[in-house]
């Protein structure tokens, strides 16, 4: 069976690419600290030596639209082109092409349907910055095949938070039951408190630092039940109007498991939003002998 080599949850900040590559007067004052944190975070994936990446993200009205909106979708294709004109325009993101892992995608679809997740699928999916941002931060050589899993955190009506957690648990079980000798990392990106297009956007910090503090604690300690007790579709409006992206973090808590303490936790307080990075090693920290 396949091995779950690492579970990684992250914010996806589309400005990272531009900030990290800017030089001279264009380089923002926080860029060096940000790059240093990202490089440490990247090392947590590198040392897990993954062969395949399951990438959980959310389309931002690029290919998926309101005339035909899936709640959860798995991409099954040999290749995934990536990034769109408006992401080049606003964020300077490069066009990319990633390979797909169709055998694992087919397994997630079949097994997921049999577990009562009515997953949509796409055989021609252009992925956006919710998946390419973590490729750029965590695996910039973009050399590993992926299985994209899209969730709807964007276009209400949305699935309930508990459904995200349940899908995360199922993804873990399905990865671990995949008949393969591959090492799989599951990487998902979402948001902490975030406001887009509303009065609280682009402030000195994220719109709700107290929510961010609690959210980091829930994730870092694996407090799935505590998080579910506090978070609802209604409550997520309060920290910021785009905070439903936090449900992708909840999905990743489901992958990591109840009570699973993250092996790597880091944050960076930026204008507009807080960055947060988490890595779990379900089978022990690579390089540290479990039998020692």
């Amino acid at each position, binding site marked *: 069976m396949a091995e779950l080599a690492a579970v990684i949850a992250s914010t996806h900040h589309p400005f990272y690419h531009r900030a990290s590559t800017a030089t001279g007067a264009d380089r923002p004052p926080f860029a060096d600290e940000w790059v240093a944190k990202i490089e440490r975070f990247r090392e947590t994936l590198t040392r897990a030596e993954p062969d395949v990446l399951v990438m959980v993200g959310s389309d*931002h*009205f*690029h290919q998926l*639209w*309101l*005339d*035909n909106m899936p709640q959860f979708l798995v991409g099954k294709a040999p290749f995934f082109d990536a990034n*769109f*004109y*408006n992401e080049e*325009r*606003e964020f300077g993101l490069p066009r990319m092409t990633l390979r797909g892992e169709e055998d694992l995608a087919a397994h997630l679809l079949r097994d997921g349907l049999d577990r009562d997740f009515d997953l949509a699928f796409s055989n021609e999916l252009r992925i956006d910055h919710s998946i390419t941002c973590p490729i750029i931060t965590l695996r910039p050589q973009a050399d590993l095949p992926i299985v994209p899993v899209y969730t709807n955190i*964007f*276009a*209400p*009506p949305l699935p309930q938070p508990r459904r995200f957690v349940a899908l995360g648990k199922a993804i873990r079980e399905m990865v671990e039951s995949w008949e393969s000798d591959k090492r799989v990392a599951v990487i998902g990106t979402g948001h902490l408190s975030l*406001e*887009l*297009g*509303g*009065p*609280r*956007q*682009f*402030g000195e910090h994220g719109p709700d630092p107290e929510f961010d503090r609690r959210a980091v604690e829930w994730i870092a300690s694996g407090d799935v039940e505590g998080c579910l007790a506090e978070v609802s579709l209604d409550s997520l*409006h*309060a920290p910021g*109007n*785009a905070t439903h992206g936090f449900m992708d973090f909840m999905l990743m808590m489901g992958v990591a498991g109840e009570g699973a303490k993250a092996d790597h936790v880091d944050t960076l307080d930026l*204008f507009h939003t807080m960055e947060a990075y988490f890595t779990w090693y379900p089978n022990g920290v690579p390089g540290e002998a479990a039998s020692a």
Partner: protein
Amino acid sequence: MSRYLLDKFLYTVDRDPELVERYREDPAGTVAWWEAEMANRILNCTADERSTWLAFTEDERRALRQHDHVTLFQMGAHPFLTLTLFIAMFERDHGPLEYQKAYGQAMAHLSLPYPDIST
């Protein structure tokens, strides 16, 4: 009121570089053309397989014609779509992040709960 149609306008303009410029330079003409030609186009169907029933209210037309992002927000247009398109049109006229901050400041009088954006 049709939040869906407002969103469809913002979405289809935002993804097309020529339409972004056209809407910036000629908002009234673009809104009129779009409602006549594009509003009933089903995006994943051939041009002949059109819908028959989609139209703006006069208030919606006016908000779009006036580039009035505050009213669009109050109508429940998807804030991500509005923000992305308006940054594309107007960020170029301002210093770094100046436009984004002013955009939020223009809505400082609004408080929770925000308008429903479901479609």
